[in-house]
């Protein structure tokens, strides 16, 4: 079975083709970052206007790069949520209509299921069951995964997502958009112990997160100390350490509570080197194993959507003719495979 995947949930247009025999045949990600940089964040209407220009040309390019004709595609998978409604609708309208015209089934993919399954595109794929830490600009969740569509939400952020906290703090520091990766780079030059930022919600039981207080703490330091390069680097390092400590502590707690030995970390923040180093230490101490998506599949991409769609389409699931999108969509509502 050969599946075309379309991702347009935010500011990346991702297109890919995944095949049962050949694996990932092509994948293209077009990023809108330069469009939104002048605004300091994603402008939803501009995102939608760009997706409608880029999606179909990228589909043609992906087919060409895979060296396969449109008639060899057996199904179309598109991101239907969560994400920006207008942006989602572009990929959904094109994807659902393409499948209709080809006379092939279509599948509405949950964006976070895409992230969650992305490590399975790697040679060393995790076996079920596992604990998943989903960390991106939109989500911070701990999920127990017993199979595809068998998800139990153990904890999540009650306010900002971890990636959002990175971007917002970077913006306070005057870094370009998206500031998260820039902040992480700056952190390598700073003293992580210089400023005692809070580790929110770690002093009480439970697996939920809260990151909105961290940017306030950072703002206070910036106000008190100014913006010299060393202060900037020290804030970045101290902030990153606080986020990483919090994520690692909750992972340890969740692994202990569930007895699981495998940890999957996915989403844009899973590319963070400091997080990866500390999680490696954690899993070594717990005699477990940690799995990541390939670097290029940590951020939004079409490959994870093609793969998640392939998993469900080959199990016989399909979407009716409505081009439904679900901007807010709890992952636990997904049917099992």
């Amino acid at each position, binding site marked *: 079975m050969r599946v075309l995947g379309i991702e347009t949930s935010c500011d990346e247009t991702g297109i890919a083709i995944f095949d049962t025999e050949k694996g990932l045949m092509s994948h293209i990600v077009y990023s809108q970052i330069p469009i939104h940089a002048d*605004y300091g964040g994603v402008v939803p209407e501009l995102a939608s206007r760009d997706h409608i220009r880029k*999606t179909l040309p990228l589909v043609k390019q992906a087919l060409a790069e895979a060296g396969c004709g449109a008639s060899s595609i057996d199904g179309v998978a598109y991101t239907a949520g969560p994400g920006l409604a207008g942006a989602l609708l572009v990929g959904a*309208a*094109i994807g*659902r*209509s393409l499948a209709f015209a080809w006379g092939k089934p279509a599948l509405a993919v949950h964006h976070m299921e895409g992230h969650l399954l992305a490590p399975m595109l790697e040679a060393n794929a995790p076996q079920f069951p596992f604990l998943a830490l989903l960390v991106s600009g939109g989500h911070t969740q701990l999920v127990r995964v017993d199979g595809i569509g068998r998800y139990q939400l153990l904890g999540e952020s009650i306010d900002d997502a971890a990636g959002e906290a990175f971007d917002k703090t970077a913006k306070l520091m005057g870094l370009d958009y998206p500031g998260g990766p820039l902040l992480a780079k700056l952190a390598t030059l700073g003293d992580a112990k210089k400023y005692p930022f809070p580790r929110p919600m770690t002093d009480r039981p439970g697996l939920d997160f809260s990151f909105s207080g961290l940017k306030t703490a950072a703002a206070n330091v910036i106000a008190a100390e100014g913006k010299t390069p060393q202060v900037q680097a020290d804030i970045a390092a101290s902030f990153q350490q606080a986020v990483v400590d919090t994520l690692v502590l909750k992972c340890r707690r969740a692994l202990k509570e569930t007895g699981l030995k495998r940890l999957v970390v996915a989403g844009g923040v899973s590319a963070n080197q400091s997080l990866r180093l500390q999680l490696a230490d954690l899993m070594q101490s717990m005699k477990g194993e940690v799995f990541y998506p390939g670097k290029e599949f940590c951020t939004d991409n079409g490959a994870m959507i093609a793969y998640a769609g392939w998993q469900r389409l080959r199990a016989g699931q399909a979407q009716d003719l*409505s*081009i439904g999108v679900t901007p807010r969509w709890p992952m636990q509502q997904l049917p099992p495979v």
Partner: protein
Amino acid sequence: MKLLALDTSTEACSVALQYDGQKLTLDEVCPQQHSKRILPMVQQLLAESGLGLNQLDGIVFGRGPGSFTGVRIGVGVTQGLAFGADLPVFGVSTLQAMAQAAVRLHQAKQVIAAIDARMAEVYLALYQQSADGLMQPVCEELARKPAELPPLTLAGEICAVGTGLVTYRDVFLQWASDTQLKISDQVLLPSAQDMLTLAVPAWQQQLFVAAELAEPVYVRDEVTWQKLPGR
């Protein structure tokens, strides 16, 4: 010539199919439901005609102006259907389609077409019938506050169509007070059947283009979002 037309730019969700001298039309008013209804409506008309999508010659779409998201649903569906069935496409103005509806229903020769564009504005254009019976624009499409419209350049009998005329009826009556303005109570929203009428000469002139060239026309293009200081 076999053409499918579809439009989801406004509160209306409309599909029409022309083949062998026949024309089938489905018009629904279904705000916020276009994405759920449009493909089933296309499927229904294809089933009634007994035609497959790949037996058609082209797809006509409402290219706006209208709701940004609505216009993009129609363009996205058109791109998917047309690329999937290897068909060329042609975009028709929603305002022009309403002007053509005024010919069909009121034998109008001159038309003011206006769509309520929210934010206290209308999308507006003026039309006159040409020798071939089709409505042609006599001005650029505008997004404007009704009270700030430039002086009206038409005289005599004018038919006025669209939701803009409902919302701002008194302003338009004042604007066109030197003319004989008749506000249509039948043409409020665009219909895909009138887009077919307008697309036929475009087909004959080979103006249809490849699927990926199907693009929305928003009219309201000015960027109102706040840029960062110094950008």
